[in-house]
C-alpha cells in the first residue's frame, strides 16, 4: 500500500487518496455525474473540400484520414458550442492524408481537436463498419497519448452523384466502473468570493488572449489568498502547496447550468490515473462576448475511483461516445453544377422581370414546346435565342449532315461534328444545346420534309408517307413551329399542317441581303364544340392574318433545279441569319405574352406612338429588313382565299383526305392551283392582257 501513496506526504489536498487493491471507495452520498454529450457541426465547406479531395486525389481509397476539428468554450447561455468541421479541417496537402497531423494551431475560437475520418465508397460499407471496435481503437489513443484528452471519430459516405453526405460522429470516452459521482456543482460566481472571482476572470482572459495558450483547453487553476493563477497541466507536481485551492480547468463547450461538458469525462479518468486523486475539483470555463463569464462557468467536485483493470497496460478500456444516429446532409442545390447552372440562367430572366418587365411570364417560356424545322444558320441561331429566353423544350428537325462549311455560320456546330462524313445535323444540334446548358430538353430528328414539285418515285411512296405522318405528329405535339428551311417549297407542308392544327407558326427566310420574319395567322377552321362533325370556317367573318404563301400567285414549285450556283447554295450575308433569328424569337415571346395569342391582330410600327400598351411593344405580322439600307419595315397582310397552304379550301381538303391529298399535291403542283382557283384567276388576268407585275414574285431570290 505504501508504494501507491502520493509522493508528497505534506499534501494538504484532502482529495489525495491512496489507491490499491484494497482501496474501497469512500463516497459522499451523491449521484452519478452525468456529462452533457458533445454535438457536431459540419460546415458546408468541409463537404466541398472532401468532395474535391475524393475526386482529385482519394479516388476509391478508403484508408482512414487524419483531420482536425475545432471547438471553443461555450459563449451563449442557451447554445452549447459544437465540435466543428470546416474546410480547413482536412490537410491542405493531399499527401498528408494518412499521416497524423501535426498539431494544428488554432485561435481563440478554434481550439484544435484531432480526429479520424473513415470515408466509405458505398452505403453498404458504411453500414458494415465495426463501430464498436473503431471506438475502442480511438479510445485507446486517448489512453496512450494523454496530451490529447479529446478526440473524435467520424465515419461518412459521400454520394457524389446525388451530393448527399451521410455521416456519424463519435466522441470516445472511457467508461468508469464504478461511474464518477458528483459531490457538488455550482456556478463559479457562487463558488468563489468576489476577489477570487475577479482575479480568476483576469487570468483567464490573459490565457485566452495569448496566442501561446488560447488553444490549450486543459489547464490548472491555483487560487491562493484570493489570487488566482493559470498553469499548464504538466506543472501539477510543482503546484502542490499548502493553503491553496487547486482546480482542474478546461474549456467547456456545454451551456448547461448543472452538468459539465463531455471533455471532463476523459479528463477525470486521466487525472485519477495520473495523479492518483480520488476527489477532483474541476472548473468548467465558459465565456461571453469574448470574456470569462463566471456566472456561466461552473465549479464542482467529483469522486472518481479508477478501476483495477487500468493497471494492466494491455487492457483496452470500455468506451462509449457514438451519437445516437447518423445524419444525412443534402447539398445538391449548392454543389450540383447542373443545378447551379439552371439557377444562374434563371437569374437573368428573373432580374429582367424584377427590374423592368414585371409582366414577364417565365413559366410560359419554360414550358412552351418549340419545333424547329431546319438546323442550319437560322435553326442554330433560333435555338440559341430561345435558350436565352428560358425555353427548355426543343425539337430540331433536319435531313442533312454537318458539312465542312457549316460551323462558321451555324452556331451549334464545331469542327468535330464535320469529321467522318459529318454527324446528322439535328442530332448534333440537340447534343450541342445540352452541352451548353445541361437542363435543356432537346431532341434531334433526322427527317426530310416532303416538298411539292419534287415528285416521289414509286419506291419512295411509303417512306414519304411515313415522313408526312411523322411531321404531322411533331407539329401536333409541339406548341410552336419555326419554319427555318432553305427553300420555299419545303415550307408548304408545315404551313398546311400548322394551319390545320391551328398551331403557332413563325417563318424566317433569307435573301442575299434581305430577310423576312413573320408569324402565320390562325388556322381557317375552328371545331364547333357541340354538334357538327365537320368543322365550320372562319374565313368570312374574321380577317385572319396571312401565311408565308398568302401573297403568292403561284403554287410552290421546284426552285432548286436549274438555278445558278449562288442561288442553289443560298448564299447570304452572314449578319442576316442572326438578325432574322433574333427577331423571330422576339416575335414569339411577344406573341406568347399577348392575351389573344395566335389570334392577335398584326400591328405596324408607328412613329407617332411612343410605346405600345403591351410591355414588350407592338406585335407585328411581318418584318422585312434590308441590310444595304439598314432598314426594317413592319407589314400587315391578311389571308388569301386562294392560298395554296392555309386557305379553308385546302385545309378542308386535307382534313377530308389526309396524307393522300398531300402526296397528290406534291406530285402535281398544278393541282393546288386548280383547287384554290388560282388557275382561274390567272386565266382571267391573262385575258385582260395586263402587264403582270411580279412585285411579289420570288423567282429571282432563293426563297423570299
Amino acid at each position: 500500500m505504501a508504494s501507491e501513496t502520493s509522493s508528497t506526504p505534506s499534501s494538504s489536498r484532502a482529495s489525495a487518496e491512496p489507491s490499491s487493491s484494497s482501496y474501497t471507495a469512500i463516497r459522499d452520498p451523491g449521484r452519478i455525474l452525468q456529462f452533457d454529450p458533445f454535438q457536431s457541426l459540419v460546415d458546408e465547406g468541409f463537404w466541398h473540400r472532401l468532395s474535391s479531395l475524393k475526386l482529385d486525389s482519394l479516388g476509391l481509397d478508403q484508408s482512414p484520414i487524419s483531420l482536425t476539428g475545432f471547438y471553443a468554450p461555450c459563449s451563449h447561455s442557451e447554445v452549447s458550442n459544437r465540435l466543428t468541421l470546416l474546410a480547413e479541417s482536412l490537410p491542405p496537402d493531399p499527401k498528408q492524408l494518412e499521416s497524423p497531423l501535426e498539431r494544428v494551431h488554432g485561435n481563440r475560437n478554434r481550439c484544435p481537436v484531432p480526429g479520424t475520418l473513415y470515408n466509405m465508397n458505398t452505403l453498404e460499407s458504411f453500414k458494415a463498419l465495426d463501430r464498436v471496435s473503431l471506438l475502442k481503437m480511438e479510445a485507446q489513443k486517448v489512453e496512450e497519448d494523454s496530451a490529447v484528452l479529446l478526440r473524435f471519430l467520424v465515419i461518412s459516405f459521400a454520394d457524389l452523384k446525388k451530393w448527399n453526405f451521410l455521416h456519424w460522429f463519435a466522441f470516445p470516452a472511457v467508461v468508469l466502473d464504478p461511474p464518477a459521482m458528483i459531490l457538488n456543482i455550482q456556478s463559479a460566481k457562487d463558488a468563489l468570493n468576489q476577489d477570487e472571482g475577479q482575479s480568476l476572470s483576469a487570468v483567464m482572459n490573459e490565457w485566452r488572449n495569448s496566442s501561446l495558450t488560447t488553444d490549450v483547453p486543459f489547464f490548472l487553476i491555483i487560487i491562493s489568498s484570493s489570487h488566482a493563477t493559470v498553469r499548464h497541466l504538466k506543472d501539477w507536481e510543482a503546484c502542490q502547496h499548502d493553503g491553496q485551492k487547486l482546480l482542474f480547468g478546461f474549456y467547456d463547450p456545454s451551456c448547461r447550468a448543472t452538468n459539465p461538458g463531455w471533455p471532463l469525462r476523459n479528463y477525470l479518468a486521466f487525472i485519477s490515473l495520473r495523479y492518483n486523486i480520488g476527489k477532483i475539483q474541476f472548473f468548467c470555463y465558459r465565456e461571453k462576448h469574448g470574456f470569462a463569464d463566471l456566472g456561466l462557468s461552473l465549479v464542482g467536485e467529483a469522486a472518481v475511483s479508477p478501476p483495477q483493470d487500468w493497471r494492466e497496460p494491455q487492457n483496452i478500456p470500455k468506451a462509449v461516445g457514438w451519437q445516437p444516429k447518423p445524419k444525412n446532409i443534402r447539398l445538391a442545390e449548392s454543389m450540383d453544377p447542373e443545378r447551379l447552372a439552371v439557377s444562374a440562367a434563371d437569374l437573368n430572366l428573373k432580374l429582367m422581370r424584377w427590374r423592368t418587365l414585371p409582366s414577364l411570364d417565365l413559366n410560359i417560356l419554360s414550358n412552351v414546346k418549340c419545333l424547329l424545322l431546319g438546323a442550319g444558320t437560322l435553326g442554330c441561331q433560333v435555338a440559341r435565342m430561345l435558350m436565352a429566353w428560358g425555353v427548355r423544350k426543343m425539337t430540331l428537325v433536319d435531313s442533312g449532315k454537318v458539312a465542312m462549311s457549316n460551323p462558321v455560320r451555324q452556331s451549334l456546330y464545331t469542327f468535330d461534328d464535320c469529321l467522318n462524313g459529318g454527324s446528322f445535323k439535328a442530332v448534333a444540334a440537340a447534343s450541342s444545346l445540352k452541352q451548353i446548358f445541361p437542363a435543356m430538353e432537346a431532341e434531334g430528328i433526322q427527317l426530310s420534309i416532303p416538298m411539292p414539285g419534287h415528285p416521289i418515285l414509286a419506291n419512295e411512296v411509303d417512306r414519304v408517307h411515313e415522313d408526312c405522318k411523322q411531321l404531322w405528329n411533331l407539329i401536333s405535339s409541339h406548341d410552336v413551329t419555326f419554319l427555318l428551311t432553305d427553300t420555299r417549297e419545303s415550307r408548304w407542308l408545315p404551313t398546311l399542317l400548322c394551319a390545320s392544327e391551328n398551331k403557332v407558326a413563325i417563318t424566317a427566310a433569307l435573301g442575299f441581303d434581305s430577310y423576312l420574319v413573320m408569324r402565320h395567322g390562325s388556322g381557317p377552321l375552328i371545331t364547333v364544340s357541340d354538334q357538327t362533325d365537320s368543322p365550320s370556317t372562319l374565313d368570312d367573318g374574321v380577317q385572319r392574318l396571312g401565311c408565308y404563301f398568302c401573297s403568292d400567285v403561284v403554287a410552290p414549285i421546284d426552285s432548286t433545279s436549274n438555278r445558278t450556283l449562288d442561288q442553289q447554295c443560298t448564299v447570304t450575308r452572314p449578319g442576316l441569319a442572326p438578325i432574322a433569328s433574333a427577331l423571330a424569337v422576339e416575335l414569339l415571346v411577344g406573341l406568347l405574352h399577348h392575351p389573344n395569342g395566335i389570334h392577335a391582330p398584326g400591328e405596324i410600327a408607328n412613329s407617332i406612338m411612343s410605346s405600345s400598351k403591351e410591355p414588350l411593344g407592338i406585335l407585328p405580322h411581318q418584318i422585312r429588313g434590308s441590310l444595304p439600307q439598314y432598314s426594317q419595315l413592319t407589314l400587315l397582310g391578311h389571308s388569301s382565299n386562294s392560298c395554296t397552304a392555309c386557305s379553308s379550301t385546302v385545309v378542308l381538303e386535307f382534313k377530308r383526305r389526309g396524307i393522300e391529298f398531300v402526296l397528290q399535291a406534291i406530285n402535281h403542283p398544278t393541282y393546288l392551283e386548280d383547287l384554290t382557283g388560282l388557275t382561274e384567276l390567272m386565266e382571267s388576268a391573262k385575258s385582260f392582257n395586263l402587264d403582270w407585275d411580279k412585285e411579289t414574285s420570288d423567282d429571282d431570290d432563293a426563297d423570299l
Partner: protein
Amino acid sequence: MYQWDGTLSPSEFDISVADLCERWREVGTSLPQWVWLPDRALGALSCNVAAGYLAIENIYHQNASEEGSFEESISRDEEPFDEATLVPSNKNDMHIYDYHILYSFTFRVPVLYFRGYQSDGCPLKLVDIEKDLPAYSLKLLRESKWAFITQEDHPYLHRPWYTLHPCGTGDWMKFLLCSDAPNKIPPLHGYLSAWLSVIGQVVGLRIPIGLFKSV
C-alpha cells in the same frame, strides 16, 4: 452641377468599413463584432483596396419548427446504455446566420451576402430563411423595387450564398443620404452604417438603433 450617383470608391469603402466597426462597438449590442477578413489570395500585393470582406457570424435565431436530418434506418444498438451520459432535452434547435459585406467593383456599392444553417451545419434554403424573417422584412421583400434576394457564388469562399442584388443600391443610397441636398456629395465615411441600417431590415439583422446618426 455634379449629381452624386449614390456610389462609393474602393478606398472610400475601406474607410467606411473602419467607421462602421467603430460605431458598432460604441453603440453597444448583444450581437457579435464585425471582423475584417482580407483576401487570402492576394497575399502581399499592395493593390488590396477593398480586397476582402467584413463578417459578422454565429448569430443565433430560435427555430420555431421541428427539424431533423437524422437517418432513421441505421441505429446504434450495439452500444450499451451508459448511465453517465446526459440525455439531451428535445428542445427546438437554433438557426445560425452569417453575414458578409463585400464591395462590388461592378456597381461600386457594398453588397450583403448571407447564409443560414441548422446547428449541425446543414444549410438552410431560402424558403427556410424566409420563415425566420420578421414580418416587416417579408413585406419589404415582396413590395420593394430594390430588394431582390438571389443566390450567387461568394467571391472569396466560392460557394453559393444568398445576396441582395446590388443594382438598385446606388439609387436608394442617393435618396437616403442627400435627398435634402441633392447637389452635394455627402461625407462618405458613414455610408456603410447608413446602408446597413436599411439593408439590415430586409434580412432581419437587428441593427442597433443608434447606428445611423445623421452624417
